[in-house]
């Protein structure tokens, strides 16, 4: 929709051009979210397209994804064959919404919005990603994916700070099998629970990236394949107040769904079944 309050449109080619960050400025990555709602507080859009931060790089340490990488690029990219965990990235794209949105939406945009329904956040948590953040003065620091979001639509990013790239270590790409499972009130729309399961068949390690149901993404790890009871045990040790409780779904239901999706995810991975992504 038209954003009537926007008066200025900046197209910096480098971060140095973005000075004196104001509270009524907003980064514009793909625009698919910011243009979907009225934004009365935004006066200036800072278009990130010309920063050229859209790379996908394979290197000895693993995978690096530029923040403004268009999501569909991940679907077409030829990852090293051994990096089976990259399937989870592709699932995150497929489960975002229509393929027409992921022609424009960016990976970084999805993470920085920190919507509980983010499809990428639980993937990044399951794959042990790290985020490189640039400060306005040009200095960078790193944060673990699981520590990035603090609450729905809140991250550790300070005004003017920006996510530059996402790094996934090679040790979490090679050999790991993944499953992406989500549940929404309807078959499409905002997810109310997402579970990304990563399973290493040799080590039997299991990492669950939990999103959708919780106020900020969580990691639940096991050193060996958990039984349904063990999953239930861990779920019930966590307090109910980590779950979102609103008109889309109550906390107890979201807790239950999280457990069911974890159980189904790991059961399918260990049985070698390519199951459904959506319920």
């Amino acid at each position, binding site marked *: 929709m038209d954003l009537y309050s*926007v008066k200025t449109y900046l197209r910096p080619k480098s971060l140095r051009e973005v000075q004196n960050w104001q509270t009524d400025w907003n980064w514009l990555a793909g625009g698919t979210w910011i243009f979907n709602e009225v*934004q009365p507080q*935004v006066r200036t859009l800072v278009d990130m397209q010309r920063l050229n931060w859209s790379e996908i790089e394979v290197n000895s340490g693993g995978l690096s994804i530029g923040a403004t990488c268009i999501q569909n690029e991940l679907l077409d990219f030829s990852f090293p064959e051994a990096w089976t965990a990259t399937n989870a990235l592709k699932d995150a794209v497929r489960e975002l919404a229509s393929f027409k949105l992921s022609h*424009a939406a960016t990976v970084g945009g999805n993470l920085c919005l920190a919507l509980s329904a983010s499809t990428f956040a639980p993937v990044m948590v399951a794959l042990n990603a790290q985020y490189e953040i640039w400060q306005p003065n040009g200095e960078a620091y790193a944060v673990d994916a699981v520590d990035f979001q603090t609450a729905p639509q809140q991250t550790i990013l300070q005004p003017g700070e920006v996510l530059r790239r996402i790094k996934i270590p090679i040790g979490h790409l090679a050999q790991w099998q993944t499953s992406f499972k989500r*549940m929404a009130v309807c078959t499409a729309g*905002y997810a109310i629970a997402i579970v990304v399961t990563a399973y290493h068949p040799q080590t039997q390690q299991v990492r669950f990236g939990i999103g959708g149901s919780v106020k900020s993404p969580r990691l639940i790890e096991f050193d060996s394949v958990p039984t349904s009871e063990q999953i239930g045990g861990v779920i019930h040790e966590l307090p109910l107040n980590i779950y979102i409780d609103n008109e889309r779904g109550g906390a107890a239901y979201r807790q239950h769904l999280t457990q069911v999706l974890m159980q189904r995810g790991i059961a399918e991975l260990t049985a070698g079944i390519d199951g459904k992504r959506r319920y």
Partner: protein
Amino acid sequence: MPDSLNFQVNNQNHNTKCDSGTSLLSLLRSLGYAGVHRVCESGDCGGCTVWLDDQPIHSCIYPAMRVDSHQITTIEGLENGGLSPMQQAFLDKQGFQCGYCTPGMIMTASSLEYESEAQLKAELEGNLCRCTGYEAIIDSVLECGKDSSVKSITAKQGQVGRDVPKQDGPNLVTGKPVYTADWSPPGLLHLKVLRSPHAHARIRRIDTSKAEALEGVEAVFTHKDITRKAYSTAGHGAPVPDPLDHYLLDHKVRFIGDRTAAVVAETEAIAAKACELIEVDYEILPQAIDPIEAMQGKTIIHDEPESSQIHDAAHNIAGEVVLNKGDLEAGFAQADLIIENTYILPAVQHVHLEPHVSISWFDDEGTLVVRSSTQVPFHCQRLLSELFDIPKEKIRVYKPQLGGGFGNKQEILTEDLCVLATLKTGKPVQWRFTREEEFTATNSRHAMNIRLKTGVKQDGTITAQEMEAISNTGAYGNHGETVTFLTGCFPLGLYRCANQSYKGTVVYTNTMPAGAFRGYGATQGTFAMESQLDEIAHKLNIDPIKLRQHNLITAEDEILIGREEHFHIIGSYALDECIEKVTQALNYDSVKQPEEKHLKRGVGFAATMQASGLAKIHLASVKISLLPDGRYELRTGSVDVGTGSDTSLRQIAAQVLGTTVEKIEIFTADTHNTPFDAGSYASATAFITGQAVNLAARKLRSLLLKTASQTIEADAEKLELEETRVSSPSASITLQQLAQTATEPLSVELEHTSDRASLTFAFMGAEVEVDTETGRITVLRCAEAIDIGTAINPRICRGQATGGLVMGLGYALNEELRFDEQGKILNPSLRTYRIPAATDVPPMEIFLIEQADPYGPFGAKGIGEIGTNCAAPAIANAVANATGVRLRQLPMIPERVWQAINN
């Protein structure tokens, strides 16, 4: 304003500037690419799909500032004025109804790769259609590229009963500028309203000076600028049955979203900005959100003396319906089993893809012209005349192509303030609703709590039924009582029971008003009735189909609840055949359970009936003429909402006149150029306007034969009217000659009301699978049979059936306007209020059972609404059959199912 943008659209260069926050959608529309449709504005429906360098995107969420040096393709540029294979496929398989989703659908489908039908449906997730139920769309896409040239239907073959293509198809698949907002007179101003943030408040003081001072603002209106006159927004004929309780602008606001003030400005952006500058001092009043609480009358929503026709304003009761038959007490005394439950139905929204939009201006002769997306142009004309004290003949209301309505455009919601603004400024004014306004400031289906108590004998004979509905009409009473009447009348009337009572209470609350919506109250009552019958069958251990067959009315019965004689009558009756077809199709005795223990399957059924139009009061007038070129002209005030009625009406005329649809030019729904018609609602168009066309065409036929017999001196009895001539064995005259030599106009105009409204019946079955761990219900397949009388155009009828059924699926499983405690709607967008997508639609078997009705044209009955009623109860019954769990609240979202299973 930023730098100019250089880009190409359909290979044409553009160099233009726009505001920084403009969407590509608005930029394209401002350049005249009207085939890019504005629907959701949130990237969810795909109505605005265009290609950006050959990649399909949703232009509503794409920044226009990024278009520089890109190449855009819109529907207008798809095939350089010709038809692409996909466009041709959509025409061949008629993959559209109202056409508003069609350009986006075609732009998406043209760049899709898919390997299976299931994958195709999944890939279409970002393209929503509200009319078709997707079946025809999927068929179209699958058909693309195959050779399937459609043969035209000749006059000799006859036109009634044939799949004559919808005549508006070529315009719709090419994105022609045919809808209201696609054209406007020069010098257009834009209207926006400031809406109340409070559910119930009095305006103590309102200061518009800052808004008026903003550059580009033409005028600001508040309640101080209007003559206070109560009216109803409902589009009913006079005398209107609704409470007169609404004002152009008022000193009181009654729901979050109610109108506080109106701004007219050069652009929508300026108008929106000006609204923010209006300062309002609200005296916040206690609010009543829940109808039961509202009836206590602690706060009175309509305490103003000017309002009238309110049943009991002190208790916030807008209207009351009481229907009785027999002796209830005696009936319950005879019962072996009495069962009583309450069923909870939500407010849901129509989601017609084209929003409400009106444009008003003065033409050269000083006539006030209103171009509007309305189902009721004539009622609108009358209301505007009353409101502004202007003679009717000085107001012309007409509608262009409609992008859906489903009852929400049987309302006067935008025309009133538009006209006020044009009268005050003398200038053309447009008012277009945003999608958020559609969700928060139009109308919903009435939310209801229905208590139903049934007494039965051991053999299943119903001895008594008592129904009580609390119907939430929201802040205004439009359609309240008439909707609530049907909630009891049809579901109770469907069953033979000597002792029945119904009480419907229509309650005001401080929430968005409820109004007319396909099914018109019968949908809610059908859920209660059809659910409870299954509960009874279960308790008595009787097959639910047999229980119904034992109690359903038959062709010999009369529907007498609440009246001595009834105008809802059984003309033709084929409900028994409907039941047979559906039960056979679903093969319901042999449901196979899946291996997974958490998946349970079951089947369920439901029956319903709905009348064809309103007897005695729904007036349709038509004029049909032979033109000098030998073609015909049909003028009717009726409105094609997108269904295809403009085609069906011509089929009726063509059949009578021995010609083809193509030879009949049609003019519709224009108060200055067509005769009166009550409008498009209550499943009336085919049955009532269709009969008017039938009668007029027969009269014209006689007139043509009589005139020809005089001209060529032949016996009229021996003459035959053919496609191009009138001839006898010995002589003939072409229609052209006949028209040119006639001394008086070869034209017939007549008006028609029906003394009775024939009932259409339907029966539906659904097979579902319930995931007992997540609570998700998946509908695996469904079958519906509709006792249609005669299908004038089977493909159009089928479209009504599939579209209605899928709308019913949404009502059953997804849709609900969610309110917070303050009465604020929490899901006012298509991202959060989900309507069914292609992938949600199961295989549907539709049976049109044809047994000609004695009162409808060629035996036709209404079909517009009935398809929606059965889905929710059939699914609830199937869920109970699968899991043993009974759901009495809609929608049956997974969380509710899970809770029910675990309780």
